[in-house]
């Protein structure tokens, strides 16, 4: 086959390719002339322009390198010494890639054929072209019914054809076929059918890029099926090799090419939603000239450590910079032009390591461990840990305290918090919109009147007025804040200072507003620094400083997701370590505490629910007992009430 014969010329070229290409400068500046044979200095255009967009290629018209046409359609046998007169390099590929059979350009382009024709070059029309697309344009086709057009073409054409994406472009009717014989047959129908208007039907048939069809939900479902076929859960490996040839995708109307960022982005979001744990990704044989297309994959599949980019069309090691966020330990780059630029293996390894310092395996070969410096350039953050309680004693006190506090805080009557505060206690609240959430945030207007944000100019009088002093004033202030429902699973506690006379800790988490009229109440995030001092058997709050903002999208997603505790699970979901619900603390009087203990004993409910029952019945012990029996008879008491 002469097509391949044409390419074989390149091996001769390959053999003589030598100098300059391993020079680092090539990675930095594409516009430098290349000194190897078969390469000419090119014009001022950054050759990245070749790697973007699916439209007609820029440049080249002034005099493309004739050899480049080989890559597109060429059946041209030229000697290596042949030189085009142009100064714009048209197609930088194909010369160096070793031994590929699949030399057809990923974006068959009728312009290149035209160019070849203009240059008086023969074009091989019999080349196999299963994956080539033809666009059939019928000027004024909009005036005729689709059924008429297709029916008469079917009758006239001596080859059956399958029209894809029949649509109108202004007054033209347009459709695609993916069959050269059908395309040629359609071409022969030119001016042979009479339209209802009386004019002859004109047919323009051109080689084109695969059509971009909209991704409707049905298509996305099909895409998901294809992806699950390509996913190996035991290895956390997704094989996206040679997507352009995937029959399943083609049947779904998804015609992948290396410029279809939309397809890859869709795939990325499917990965993000379904298999974010993905570790091995195979993107080989996708004809990628640039990795721009993969940017979303990097964010949606953050755990990828093994990547196969074999047999693509990447030219520059610097292309890999876009993937630096991946902590890769294995990569395959073989079969990309960029590999040929390195003449020394050590330089190649260093260049890859520069991007991926943790690389252990390159192109299937184990690498010797790198010799590094003691100061790590890429310092990572220590991983975030759970709550810090200092010790189990503090934890027990804390869990008890918080459980009580937030139960009362979320109740209809925050007055009961009066005794949780020292009589001289101090409270303030401030709020601000989330510093990182880019999308529109839920209004915080109910909090702003109470907000004491000292980064802004704030008058002394107002500032001092917003600092509430004394438990009465504090409870009154708490009443003015919207009613809340805290998500117990979101609560994190950090005890930063503990002594016999003082506990300093921060509580953070999310809540929603109980009275919110919104369909989906906004999720708020809070952080609250408490300072407590011992009081009797428990402790009282001396300082309470609350900050409210909107939840991050991750927090909002997680919020209130955990189902209500089942009997077997813990009654204290705030923390991983369990503490039985303890004796009621300072929020209850001594008599009340005694009453709760007795009630708990008799009803078998835990302290919390006993307290709740008594509280709701005005601390009338008998009445509480009756209500309890009644509710128990009606099976209205949740099982968690009996978990002690």
């Amino acid at each position: 086959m002469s097509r391949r014969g044409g390419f074989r010329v390149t091996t001769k070229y390959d053999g003589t390719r030598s100098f300059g290409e391993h020079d680092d400068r090539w990675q930095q500046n594409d516009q430098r002339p290349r000194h190897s044979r078969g390469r000419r200095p090119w014009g001022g255009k950054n050759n990245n322009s070749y790697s973007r967009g699916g439209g007609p290629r820029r440049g080249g018209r002034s005099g493309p390198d004739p050899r480049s046409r080989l890559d597109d359609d060429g059946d041209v046998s030229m000697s290596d010494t042949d030189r085009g007169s142009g100064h714009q390099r048209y197609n930088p590929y194909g010369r160096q890639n070793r031994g590929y059979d699949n030399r057809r350009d990923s974006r068959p382009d009728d312009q290149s054929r035209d160019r070849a024709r203009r240059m008086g070059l023969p074009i091989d029309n019999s080349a196999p072209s299963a994956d080539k697309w033809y666009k059939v344009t019928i000027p004024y086709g909009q005036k005729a019914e689709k059924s008429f057009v297709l029916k008469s073409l079917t009758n006239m054409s001596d080859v059956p054809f399958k029209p894809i994406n029949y649509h109108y472009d202004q007054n033209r009717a347009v459709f695609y076929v993916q069959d050269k014989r059908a395309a040629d047959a359609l071409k022969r129908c030119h001016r042979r059918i009479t339209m209802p208007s009386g004019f002859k039907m004109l047919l323009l048939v051109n080689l084109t890029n695969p059509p971009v069809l909209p991704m409707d939900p049905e298509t996305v479902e099909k895409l998901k099926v294809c992806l699950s076929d390509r996913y190996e859960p035991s290895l956390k490996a997704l094989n996206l090799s040679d997507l352009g040839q995937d029959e399943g995708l083609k049947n779904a109307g998804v015609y992948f090419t290396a410029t279809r960022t939309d397809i890859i982005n869709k795939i990325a979001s499917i990965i993000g939603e379904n298999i974010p744990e993905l570790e091995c990704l195979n993107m080989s044989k996708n004809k990628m000239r640039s990795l721009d297309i993969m940017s979303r994959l990097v964010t949606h599949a953050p755990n990828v450590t093994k990547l196969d980019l074999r047999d693509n069309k990447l030219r520059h090691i610097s292309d890999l910079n876009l993937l630096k966020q991946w902590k890769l330990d294995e990569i395959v780059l073989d079969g990309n032009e960029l590999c040929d630029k390195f003449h020394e293996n050590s330089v190649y390894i260093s260049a890859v390591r520069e991007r991926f310092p943790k690389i252990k395996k390159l192109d299937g070969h184990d690498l010797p461990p790198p010799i590094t410096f003691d100061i790590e350039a890429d310092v990572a953050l220590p991983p975030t840990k759970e709550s810090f309680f200092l010790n189990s004693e503090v934890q027990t006190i804390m869990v008890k305290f918080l459980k009580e506090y937030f139960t009362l805080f979320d109740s209809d009557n925050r007055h009961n918090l009066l005794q949780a505060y020292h009589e001289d206690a101090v409270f303030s609240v401030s709020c601000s919109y989330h510093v990182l959430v880019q999308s529109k945030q839920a209004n915080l207007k109910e909090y702003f009147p109470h907000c004491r944000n000292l980064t802004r100019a704030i008058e002394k009088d107002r500032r001092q007025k917003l600092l509430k002093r004394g438990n009465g004033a504090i409870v009154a202030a708490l009443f003015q804040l919207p009613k809340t429902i805290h998500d117990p699973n979101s609560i994190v506690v950090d005890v930063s200072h503990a002594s016999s006379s003082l506990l300093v800790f921060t509580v953070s988490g999310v809540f929603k507003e109980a009275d919110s009229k919104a369909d989906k109440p906004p999720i708020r995030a809070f952080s609250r620094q408490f300072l407590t001092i011992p009081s009797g058997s428990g402790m009282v709050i001396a300082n309470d400083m609350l900050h409210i903002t909107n939840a991050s999208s991750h927090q909002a997603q997680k919020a209130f997701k955990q189902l209500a505790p089942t009997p077997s699970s813990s009654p204290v979901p705030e923390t991983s370590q369990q503490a039985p619900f303890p004796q009621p603390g300072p929020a209850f009087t001594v008599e009340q505490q005694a009453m709760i203990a007795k009630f708990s004993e008799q009803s078998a409910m835990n302290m919390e629910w006993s307290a709740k029952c008594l509280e709701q019945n005005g601390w009338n012990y008998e009445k509480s007992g009756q209500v309890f029996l009644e509710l128990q008879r009606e099976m209205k008491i949740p099982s968690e009430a009996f978990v002690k």
Partner: protein
Amino acid sequence: MATELDFGSKEEQAYQAAREFSKLFYNTFDKKRHLLNRLYLDTASLVWNGHSVTGLDNIIKFIDSLPSSEHTAENLDCQPLISEVSRGQLSIIVKVFGKVKYDNIKEPRAFNQDFLLTSQNNVWKIVSDSLRFQE
């Protein structure tokens, strides 16, 4: 024992200290980290996203291990400690909400940071420092 200030004056003092502290602390943390040791008490404690570190030397060592940073404070609040707790020694608590960008880490983080400061020989020192990302 110093004369007890009235609450208004304590608030004013806390306000002035917190304003200055929040600027100084993050400026030092971001640009002059080697000077941070002057801000913490010898017996200070730090809880950083659940990691507990106690003692000045350990705190400095821990902070040194973090990538270079750039903090922006969006919200600041402070309170004086009540007399029963402070017992004549002036102490305040400070709360900051903001964002921090670390070197080589692409996404900035939102953080809440709470401090307890106490005055020692007319110098404010950090008694406790608690930071958590909001994520």
